[in-house]
């Protein structure tokens, strides 16, 4: 009989491993159909990591994906589907950019102010669906999806010459954040510059772990996700949990665009990168809402995104990466469920065998 630790690890590592193998098979099929060679494509992608700024770019992307992945995972932990992280992070970013452009505090204080205002804006934007859900029972999936669309309009309203926009290089953007607000990166010379914000992402990961595993709030979050009825009987206030989890999720989402804003762009425009929210959902699924798993998912996703350029060189359409990403998410969801059921049944058999119990009893009292 295997020991305790290996069994735990098997339960945690087997699903993603199975998923990757399965999605590799799917991609191989897709590559063979599109007349490419799977071996060449993979070799090109792996060797791309060593070229130019790719390695640093992967870490930079992963930082962003990690923050948004954690934001999604906080909701997922209690079966709250915050699809609205997309809108929340963009509202957070534009608020941070506007506040940063309008103030000029000394270093440390200025970026702190930007971070706090982005976090507050993200949380506030997530408060709307939370309030609708607890007072009116409106599904958060619907409201957050609609608020994503609304956020595009809010962005257009805020980044406008009549409001907070200024014309920079033929492009309307927010007023630049003064240099005291920048977060310097770590330069690797010709290999690029790592966002200084990676430290914040790591801190968020640690805080998320501590919150989940050591705090009363994390306990109530996990209990609500596992069984709302048992949580209620155990005294967990479901409505309060929904509001707090949603606010935390939105607050974390508010951090997402800050690595770029404070470390590279210093302004926010309507053309600033978007779509991170949907990546975040995939990364959270891939990482099973686990702090370490999300980091792995974010790195894998960033690797696939950043190495895709190399595929054109070997004559493989780089869209194959999108197929890979889709296949991975699909297989993770399926394999996790399959293994969870298998493990539970195995555990029951094991406990039964270990105790030698018995299938006797029970019906005895009847006669």
């Amino acid at each position, binding site marked *: 009989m295997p020991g*305790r630790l290996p069994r735990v690890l098997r339960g945690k590592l087997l699903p993603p491993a199975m998923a990757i193998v399965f999605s590799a098979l799917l991609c191989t099929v897709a590559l063979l159909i599109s007349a490419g060679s799977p071996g060449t494509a993979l070799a090109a992608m792996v060797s791309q990591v060593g070229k130019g700024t790719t390695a640093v770019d992967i870490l930079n992307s992963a930082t962003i994906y990690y923050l948004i992945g954690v934001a999604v995972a906080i909701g997922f932990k209690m079966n709250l589907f915050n699809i609205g992280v997309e809108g929340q992070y963009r509202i957070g970013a534009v608020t941070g950019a506007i506040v940063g452009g309008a103030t000029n505090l000394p270093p440390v204080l200025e970026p702190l102010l930007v971070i706090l205002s982005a976090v507050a804006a993200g949380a506030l934007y997530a408060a709307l669906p939370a309030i609708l859900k607890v007072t009116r029972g409106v599904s958060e999936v619907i409201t957050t999806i609609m608020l994503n669309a609304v956020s595009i309009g809010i962005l257009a309203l805020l980044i406008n010459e009549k409001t907070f926009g200024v014309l920079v290089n033929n492009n309307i953007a927010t007023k630049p954040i003064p240099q005291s607000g920048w977060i310097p990166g770590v330069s690797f010379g010709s290999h690029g510059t790592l966002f200084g914000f990676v430290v914040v992402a790591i801190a968020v990961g640690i805080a998320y772990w501590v919150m989940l*595993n*050591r*705090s*009363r*709030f*994390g*306990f*109530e979050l*996990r*209990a609500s996700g*596992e*069984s709302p*009825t*048992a*949580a*209620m*009987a*155990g*005294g*967990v*206030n479901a409505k309060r949990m929904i509001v707090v989890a949603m606010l935390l999720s939105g607050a974390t989402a508010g951090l997402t665009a800050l690595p770029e804003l404070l470390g590279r762009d210093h302004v926010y425009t309507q053309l600033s990168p978007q779509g991170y929210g949907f990546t975040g959902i995939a990364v959270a699924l891939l990482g099973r809402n686990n702090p370490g798993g999300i980091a792995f998912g974010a790195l894998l996703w960033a690797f696939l995104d950043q190495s895709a350029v190399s595929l054109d060189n070997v004559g493989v359409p780089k869209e194959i990466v999108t197929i890979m990403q889709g296949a991975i998410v699909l297989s993770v969801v399926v394999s996790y469920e399959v293994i*969870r059921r298998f493990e*539970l049944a195995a*555990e*029951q*058999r*094991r*406990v*039964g065998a*270990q*105790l030698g*119990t*018995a*299938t*006797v*009893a*029970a*019906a*005895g*009292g*009847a*006669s």
Partner: protein
Amino acid sequence: MDDTSAPPAVVLTGITKRFPGVVANHDIRLTVLAGEVHALCGENGAGKSTLMKILYGMQQPDEGTIEVDGKPVRFRSPSDAIRAGIGMVHQHFMLADNLTVLENVVLGAEALHGIGGRARARIAELAGRTGLSVDPDVLVERLGVADRQRVEILKVLYRGARTVILDEPTAVLVPQEVDELFATLRSMRDQGFTFLFISHKLDEVRAIADRVTVIRRGTTVGTTDPTTVTSRQLAEMMVGSELPSPQVKHTDVTTRTVLAVTGLRLCAAGDSSRPLLDDIDLAVHAGEIMGIAGVEGNGQTELVETIMGIRRADSGTVRLTGSGGATRDLTGLGTLRRREAGIGYVPEDRHRHGLLLTQSLWFNRILGFQTRKPVARGRWLDVPGARDDTSRIVAQFDVRTPGIDVPAAALSGGNQQKFIVGRELSGDPALLIASHPTRGVDVGAQAMIWEQIKQARADGLAVLLVSADLDELIGLSDTIKVMLRGRLVADADPATVTTEELGCAMTGTGAGGGGS
């Protein structure tokens, strides 16, 4: 059809079904004659639903045989059962609201008569023959509950069922609709259809059934003719009448009131005319076990959940005197505050309300105690403290488990329940509320749990015990109150009352005693 010469529609012989650590069904014997309405009676958790799942092919028995129309069969899935002419109408309807009646009936059985004119003709013919008339083109979402039930029955008939299992069909109906349903069932029975009617409402069983089989603690107790037995006798068969282990009667009930409930009233959501609980007054003293007797569904669940703060009372007060002697008004507090004030709660459904099934035992130890020592310190969990205290419960309450890291779901029902009782007796409670504490557990665990409840009383706790098992109630309680239609209608002294008298008061028949 001539009933007497036809082979029985269904014969179950020696059916046994085991789940890890628990026997859900044990040596079930059931014979359903062709062309009869056969009722299957038993309390919740007695094993009715497992048995029906076996008969409908959703689960396979570990032992025993099934015969349909005289031929032995093995069902691997519900489609096998349907092919053999057995259909099931679930308690919770399985209809698509946004499809029409016709579409719902045909859905999944398109191969039989297509989806067009032939299907329509077949449905019209069935409806004409059975009196189950519903407009085939109306959307199901526009139908009332009774009509939906007709559609469900039509669905199984359309698939060729001659034997129909009805799972608690009257639970959702108002009395006139029940009468209509029964009229339909009688006329269909006369045309040769066979019904297996699952219920714990004894009056209805006596009104419709030709024969009734009682199931208790996973096994069939006997089959009888409902016209010759009284509801009371049936109730006795359902809950058992032999007394549990000899009792040492305690007389150390104190005069110190721990739980005082006054004027409690609870209405169904959005309907203030139909109270689920009305005018409930009760006082449980330190060192006292107060039993609440009643046929299931008469407000016991609501009473417990209202005292726990899971449901909000419309009026009335709940006061608790903690072990420190201070009295607190709990009326406006939430569940967590009430637990902190000193209430331990053993819920009636341990899977839905008592445990986080995939989480470890020590994680489950925290549930309900997340603000208290030794499992929490302020806003933070005390994991070593929770683990240590879980080990204490496992040892002290004889929870059979290989360790405290196994998921709760891996334990047998009896061991899960022992763990819950141990947890709820932690943290120095003043009051223990136990709902059906030994339902669905093996006899060993049952004795252990009884012992612990008696020990809690000896330690000066007040205990509110809700149970459908009259022997348990009489054996453990110091006072018994009877609940009927949301009210406390009678008091009984467990030292002198008989199960027969209790059954009488529970069903509201005869002179069961004065109001409280």
